[in-house]
């Protein structure tokens, strides 16, 4: 039963991944990419790595792909013009493809692959989540923290690059706005006819 599910989901992954590069409309490409991410999460569920599957959906589908979609929708790129020169790059593309395929073949031939029936998604712990937590926060704590700091530095860098101080923009002062009372803004007048205020 699980085998049929695997083939079905794997087929969806392959078709959607192909469609990412085949689709003419870039927004459609991103939508196919989202389907590919989501189906890959299905594959992870099938081998019992449900925590990783959910993280894949939360991080990649829920956050990263939304930003992709944002950028692609906002960009006004002429893709016909962009695609004109692409044929020049095909030898490079073939080279990259061959290297990828060779690596995968080498890994499967010489690697110590575990049989699917003996594969354990959560070694040495009750659940997948615990297994990942134990490895990440004990064995690889330093690397994990370093990765976090690198991401923080990257984030601060991006903010510094894009932050512009423009003195002419009008800023909202929320404290001032909420502390405003009726007596500050209203004044009742009783003008006599023909006199005005």
């Amino acid at each position, binding site marked *: 039963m699980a085998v049929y599910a695997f083939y079905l989901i794997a087929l969806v992954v392959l078709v959607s991944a192909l469609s990412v590069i085949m689709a003419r409309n870039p*927004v459609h490409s991103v939508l196919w990419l989202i389907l590919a991410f989501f189906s890959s999460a299905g594959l992870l569920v099938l081998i019992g790595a449900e*925590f990783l599957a*959910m993280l894949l959906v*939360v991080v990649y589908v*829920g956050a990263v792909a*939304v930003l992709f979609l*944002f950028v692609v929708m906002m960009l006004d790129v002429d893709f016909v013009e962009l695609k004109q020169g692409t044929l020049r790059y095909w030898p490079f593309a073939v080279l990259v493809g061959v290297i990828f395929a060779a690596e995968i073949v080498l890994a499967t031939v010489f690697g110590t692959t575990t049989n699917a029936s003996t594969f354990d998604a959560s070694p040495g712990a009750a659940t997948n*989540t615990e297994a990942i937590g134990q490895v990440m926060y004990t064995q690889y704590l330093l690397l994990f923290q370093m990765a976090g700091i690198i991401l923080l530095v990257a984030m601060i860098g991006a903010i510094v690059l894009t932050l512009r101080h423009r003195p002419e923009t009008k800023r909202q002062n*929320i404290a001032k706005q909420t502390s405003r009372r009726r007596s500050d803004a209203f004044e009742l007048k009783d003008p006599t006819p023909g006199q005005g205020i």
Partner: protein
Amino acid sequence: MSNYVESFGQLWGPLLVLGQIALFTLVLLLSIAFLLLLDRKVWAGVMMRKGPNVVGPFGLLQSFADFGKFLIKEIVIPAGANKTVFIMAPILTCTLAFASWAAIPVAPGTTSGTSWVISNLNVGILYLFAISSLGVYGIIMGGWASNSKYPFLGALRSAAQMVSYEVSIGFVIVTVILLVGSMNLTDIVNNQDGGFWNWHAFSFQNFPLIIVMFPMFVIFFISALAETNRPPFDLPEAESELVAGYQVEYGSTPYLLFMLGEYLNIVLMCAMMTILFLGGWHGPIPLGEDFVRDHPFLNAFAGLFWFMFKILFFFFLFAMVKAIVPRYRYDQLMRLGWKVFLPTSLVAVLIVAGYVAYMGVQS
């Protein structure tokens, strides 16, 4: 003969799941019909109107009349629209809204530690979080595919808003997970056994934490309003600025699906608040629980009653907020999400984690 029985036994599991799904769908659809009416009645009551009162007694059948109207209207697709994506967006919204209900436990099971749930996932709360984070796609796709300005602006607003508030929702969920030590929704509910003082919103058994957990409960409620695009955070469909936002070009059945998905998400958020903070199916005072414990089915139905009662309570709050609070300005919305809720919930995670690590949890 025995062969047939055996093959039926193999079929029994999948058939049971299919039956559960059908039951959940039916009950949800029926509840949505009446909750929609409740929403309109509460809103009308606050405004001193009567609300829908023509179709059926007290207007009880109003939602069914609306349903029929939406079904028999013509589906209009704008000429410049991207047809496939345009049709897919409402279907996606509705499907995702239904999908998240697969992990919601609604009543205690007949043996301890089990519950009435379609799929008792180990990462249940993460599953809910993942599915609800996908909800934004229905809106972006609908807004983009309409190929018109108001829907697109509405979709962009909505995407930014939902992504912002998801962050604080995530941190609030982490505080609850830290208290329970499990991501299984059934475990989370069972951790709040034995009276309202044990509910996570109050958590008297870990006394000082009430200072943290009650504000977290309030933050979750407000973020849930923003996450479901409900007033006062309904900027994606602010009618005075964007007509109806991403829904402008939708009518007939696609619109019905959008609205159905939206209300399902609201009820889902109510269910999540019930499970995470208000003890799920546990009654507020453990009176008579010893008696029903010997009668598992009575126990289950008592649990179901409390679960639905709490969802109804939260839905009433949602309706009251819609009636009372004026709409936020967009910069206020972003400020609230990023500058108030995010730091507060982050500090709360630190405090709860420190408490759990150094004091230990009493459950």
